[in-house]
């Protein structure tokens, strides 16, 4: 018996990710159900494709996010307290949030409360009243939260980075416009809800321990009066070139560390070479055996947290390399990150490193299947990005079939460091 080498594997155990069953309500709402009895819980994800921040009118930036936040602020039959209290009593939670293009209602409950929770969701979805006193509280708290966010390096970096990537395009929006925030009231919120929280284009995903027939019966009844389609134009096509490049400093007095974001624009998730690019970016900066982790952190000690990833938007993606480093190491860390990108596109990728990254990505994906919420979120991604519903079934094989040449060529095509924008949040003197 030796301890000098790693032990052999036990036999593989496989698992199948179940495919959802698709149903449709008369009002057009698509319902995807995945019964899963591993926990006595039900997870709900409702995707509203035209209710995200990019759909705000330019003079009302922030209204989409406010509408989402205030969806749970009251209905004709429930106060905000009653909505929160009920959700708690069902062993769950309910919230609505606006993302870049979509808005999502997320809820969960203990299985025993499937019926009342579904009815609570239906009430919130169809009959929000946006009470004036709740709108006022949200307005003043949002202003304070903005001040809080703008004291945090990560938020300042993200805000500046998006403007550098997207310029005037709506994808640049992260925070509300403070002027618009002062103006909107119940009427504007109602109007946004009426126009954009409609069933015809929406998808409801339900994962967990429930009977699909019973669920469909409840939904047919509870959502019977929800009607309509969203008359909307899609968000204009985003630019393919970043609006700005080079060094962009966000001065933050009293900083003892620089928050770095380097990046550029890349093709969307449904592009043919998107997965090859994801593989290359992961090899560069995902996990503790990635190149950025092993050089920037383990070799040089420049950062505790360093990595790279792709941020997916509906019709584009953004490559991001991110690290936080002591003020005096700012330039050295940026140089090291760029050098690793150069190496990725310049030197052949060793076969074992490629294989290791493929295994890592597949393994991490498998961990996403462990919980019911994880399964719900996988399918939510498929819905949001318009991926085929069997995408995650095929994902491991698609990843495993990619070659080093494909990964490298995708990296070389999209990750040219001379086109990067480099956002630095830190000491004013770093400009």
């Amino acid at each position: 018996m030796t301890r000098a080498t790693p032990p052999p594997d036990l036999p593989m155990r496989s698992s199948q990710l179940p495919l959802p069953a698709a149903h449709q309500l008369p009002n057009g709402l698509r319902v995807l159900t995945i019964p899963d009895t591993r926990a006595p819980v039900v997870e709900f994800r409702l995707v509203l494709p035209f209710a995200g921040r990019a759909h705000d009118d330019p003079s009302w930036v922030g209204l989409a996010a406010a509408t989402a936040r205030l969806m749970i602020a009251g209905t004709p039959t429930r106060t905000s307290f009653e909505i929160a209290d009920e959700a708690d009593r069902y062993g769950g939670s309910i919230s609505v949030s606006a993302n870049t293009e979509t808005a999502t209602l997320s809820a969960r409950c203990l299985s025993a409360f499937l019926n009342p929770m579904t009815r609570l969701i239906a009430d919130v979805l169809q009959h929000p009243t946006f009470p004036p006193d709740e709108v006022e509280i949200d307005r003043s708290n949002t202003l304070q939260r903005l001040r809080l966010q703008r004291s945090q390096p990560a938020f300042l970096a993200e805000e500046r980075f998006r403007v550098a990537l997207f310029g005037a395009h709506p994808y640049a929006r992260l925070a509300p416009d403070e002027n618009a925030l002062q103006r909107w009231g119940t009427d504007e919120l109602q109007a946004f809800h009426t126009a954009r929280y409609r069933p015809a284009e929406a998808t409801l995903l339900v994962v967990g321990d429930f009977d699909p027939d019973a669920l469909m019966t409840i939904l047919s009844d509870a959502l019977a009066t929800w009607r309509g389609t969203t008359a909307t134009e899609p968000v204009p096509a985003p630019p393919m070139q970043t609006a700005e490049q080079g060094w962009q400093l966000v001065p933050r007095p009293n900083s003892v560390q620089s928050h770095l974001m380097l990046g550029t624009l890349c093709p969307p998730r449904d592009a043919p070479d998107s997965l090859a690019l994801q593989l290359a970016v992961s090899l560069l900066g995902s996990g503790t055996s990635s190149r950025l982790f092993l050089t920037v952190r383990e070799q040089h000690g420049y950062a505790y947290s360093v990595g790279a990833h792709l941020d997916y938007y509906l019709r584009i993606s953004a490559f991001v390399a991110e690290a936080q480093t002591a003020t005096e190491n700012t330039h050295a860390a940026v140089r090291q990150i760029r050098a690793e990108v150069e190496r990725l596109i310049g030197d052949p990728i060793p076969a074992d490193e490629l294989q290791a990254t493929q295994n890592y990505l597949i393994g991490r994906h498998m961990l996403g299947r462990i919980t019911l919420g994880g399964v719900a979120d996988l399918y939510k991604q498929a819905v949001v990005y318009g991926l085929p519903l069997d995408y995650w079934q095929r994902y491991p094989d698609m990843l495993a079939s990619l070659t080093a040449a494909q990964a490298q060529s995708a990296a070389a095509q999209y990750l040219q460091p001379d086109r990067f924008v480099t956002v630095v949040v830190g000491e004013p003197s770093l400009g």
Partner: protein
Amino acid sequence: MNPVPTTRIEYETYTLPNGLQVILSPHGVAPTVAVLVLYKVGSVNEPRGKTGFAHLFEHMMFQGSENVPREMHFKYVESNGGVLNGFTSHDLTVYFELLPASKLPLGLWLESDRMRSLQVSQENLDNQRAVVKEERRLSVDNQPYARAMECLRAIAYDNFANQHSVIGSMEDLDHATLEDVQAFFRTYYAPNNAILVVSGDYDPDEARAWVARYFADIPAQLPPPPVDVSEPDREERREVFLDTLAQVPAVAITWKIPSRGTLENDALQIAGDLLTDGRAARLYQRLVKQEHIAVSVSGGAEARPAPSLFRLFVLHHPHVAPTRVEAVIYEEIQKLAEGGVPERELERVRTQLLAQRWSDNLYYGMQSPLGRALGLAYFAAFEGDPDGVNRALERLLAITPDEVQRAMQQYLHTSRNRTVMHIQAGATQGGAA
């Protein structure tokens, strides 16, 4: 009558001759295993001048051992489709791998190799010291409120063991030596000071054989010296902290309360939920919704195996005096402590406790093999019995309104052992470009 069963976490436990406690908890809902090792050492074990050492040492555990060279721990795990991490708290240090079920032997091999034969060099120590300093800057020195919280802890407690932060001071990190690392390893990283948990989809007979093969001949060490974590009673302390990174003022309050495993700590867990858990909670409703003076409310009772803190943290509007925020908080505590706890509110909290057990958080919930492993390990380490993980929920659900009221009267409706900090927002406006 509860609408869902409080499902047990099944397990078996035994101790190897070298003192290593082993807990096996097979559970076949996903083809994954969690391998977890808990060492009973944390920042409470650090003497003056060595703050941050337990956490710095945790970093050293990834720097190589006899058969696993530097960087290879990460690579073995990730290239086999797993994830890994470690964390240090005041009272413990935990390492884990979450792996495909077929890689169970690999996880045990990796953990045993570093328990047996950690190898460290001056170069690796210097590198990880730099990394930990960046971690300190990231999580404390460059963040609003974080330095205030570190300072609050130091004045909330009276015993040095409890006072200092896990991340430690820059100065003390500078003084850590290779000899310190080696001595710490010998004293605290012995099998008799550790708990190994394997949870997930595997055959327990097979696991027992691999555990014996890799861990049985790691020699035991003398038990580590005990630490005195006791806390004296004292009068209220107050502090004003000017935070040059913050733009929104805050009030933070703590009370010293009894340790986990006591009826009082359990009752105060419930009190914390009544006051701060979610948008239906009393302090959120009063401070945010009725008085319009706060932006957010958070807090609750810690459950340390030592005198713990009941904490409240309220971000408030700049035009409101912090003493006004305090007064409202004390009023809400008084209402429950003197007027009693309505059964209906307690029922809401009980249902949430049940639901949290099924949380899909990989670290906490029963849905995840890692969540199950951590639960078993904590109770084995802190309360001497892994079955506590099963009894704890029953215990909490059985807490009566009277018990909550009495605990609040004794520990929260008083200025005794209280620490109050007003955090002033000292950042100049306009960091944003």
